[in-house]
């Protein structure tokens, strides 16, 4: 059977961002997939050399719109560890609340795009309608829908008033009801299962060997979640990683669906335990040394390496985003799947290219 080489992307209806895949196809079955990047590379890490370490918060927030809060959280936690700053307890809980709101809107965005990838347009619009409630919450509590800019070195810049806390709880109840109403469709619909079950299978040993993170790893049955490190206030909240054993596109979707409900639970826990106190600690001096920081972004483990020599600027900031860690798995998942299933498998890793290329 002759082989053909088919370009997939960088512009494709299913891709929100540009990535190119060179697909070697034999009789409509993928034999090899090689990714090509470089369409949105910005070199943001280099800005660490000319922006001071406080200004870098605004830079890292712009690595990715969908998970901007997680980038600044990881960065400030790395700087705080380097400078020995103890963050006030209230700020730690507030960070959890906004981080989980971010996870919810990211997962709901993805669930909608996933439905779109197999042509379920009404489900796509229904999920995004629910997501709007989270975006409204973010705007009402931070002043911005996407780049919420709440983290500062030493704490947070905003508080939640009692009225805002009640508004969050009321909205979360509505969101929970609406998300649960879609559960049967999302997880048991015949067409969705036909398009996602058994597609792009990644065994647990493959996922670990390929360095996968987040829902891709947990969807292959591996119970790893960076929140278990206990950063912010996660060490005082009760949760277990959401794990699904099947390792296919359906399992990865199920993990994200269940994580939306888990985030609602975590926000309720955090609000019920929210302590009184300061929003931030004072920051004196400049960072010096070398260290790493990790947080659980919606797409998985986010890793920062920071090196500072005591000056205003950092000498190196290195950002390893979850999609960067999950792309090698995509190269492994695609061989053997039909060309028509490529959009579904690609979407199943929740690719964020602006994160990947920074």
């Amino acid at each position: 059977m002759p082989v053909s080489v088919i370009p997939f992307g960088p512009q494709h209806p299913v891709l929100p961002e540009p990535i190119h895949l060179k697909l070697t196809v034999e009789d409509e079955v993928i034999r090899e997939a090689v990714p090509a990047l470089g369409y949105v590379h910005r070199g943001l890490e280099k800005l660490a050399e000319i922006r001071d370490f406080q200004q870098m918060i605004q830079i890292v927030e712009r690595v990715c719109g969908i998970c901007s809060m997680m980038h600044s959280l990881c960065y400030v936690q790395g700087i705080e560890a380097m400078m020995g700053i103890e963050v006030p307890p209230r700020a730690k809980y507030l960070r959890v609340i906004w981080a989980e709101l971010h996870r919810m809107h990211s997962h709901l965005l993805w669930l909608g795009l996933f439905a779109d990838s197999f042509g379920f347009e009404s489900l796509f619009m229904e999920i995004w309608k629910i997501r709007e409630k989270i975006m409204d919450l973010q705007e009402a509590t931070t002043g911005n829908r996407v780049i919420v800019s709440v983290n500062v070195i030493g704490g947070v810049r905003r508080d939640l008033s009692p009225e805002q806390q009640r508004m969050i709880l009321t909205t979360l109840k509505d969101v929970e009801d609406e998300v649960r109403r879609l559960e049967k469709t999302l997880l048991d619909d015949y067409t969705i299962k036909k398009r996602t079950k058994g597609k792009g299978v990644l065994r647990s040993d493959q996922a670990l060997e390929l360095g996968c993170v987040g829902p891709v790893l947990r969807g292959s049955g591996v119970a790893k979640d960076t929140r278990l490190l206990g950063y912010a206030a996660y060490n005082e909240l009760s949760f277990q990683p959401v794990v699904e054993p099947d390792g296919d596109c359906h399992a990865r979707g199920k993990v994200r669906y269940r994580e939306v409900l888990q985030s609602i639970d975590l926000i309720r826990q955090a609000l019920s335990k929210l302590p009184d106190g300061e929003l931030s600690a004072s920051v004196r001096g400049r960072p010096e040394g070398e260290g790493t920081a990790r947080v659980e972004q919606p797409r998985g483990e986010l890793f920062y390496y920071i090196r500072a020599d005591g000056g205003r600027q950092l000498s190196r900031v290195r950002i390893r985003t979850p999609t960067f860690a999950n792309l090698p798995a995509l190269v492994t998942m695609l061989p053997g799947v039909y060309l028509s299933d490529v959009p579904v498998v690609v979407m199943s890793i929740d690719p964020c290219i602006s994160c990947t290329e920074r």
Partner: protein
Amino acid sequence: MSMEAIAVSPEHVVGACAERKAAGYRFVTMTCVAVDEHMLDVLYHFDKDMELEHLRLRIPKDSCVPSITPVFFAAFLVENEIQDLFGLRFCGLAIDYKHSLYLDEAAPKAPFCKGAVDASPRPGGKPPGDPESSE
């Protein structure tokens, strides 16, 4: 704050990574840092049971570092990224983009590296991901 990293030599870096793989470590990523105009640090980060372990390879920037992709295939992206941004070469890369993962021909060579660097593509045709490649 200082980060503990185990120093390795170019001859032993692949073996050290293979030992960690055998011990059940997950490959997290690699980091390249320009130490000065001549030397680079290449850090290898691994995770096991939520604990990180780091290897440090200090090497002249015109060296060819043995690729760890025969051990951890997932390293092919970050090794190509370092090739692009620092001009450091990796020998035995599983998928070699030949300095074109992120940067096109008109872009500055090795923009993250201090001082001049030879980051010209090696011979061997177009990179594997090039949509116009006839491979």
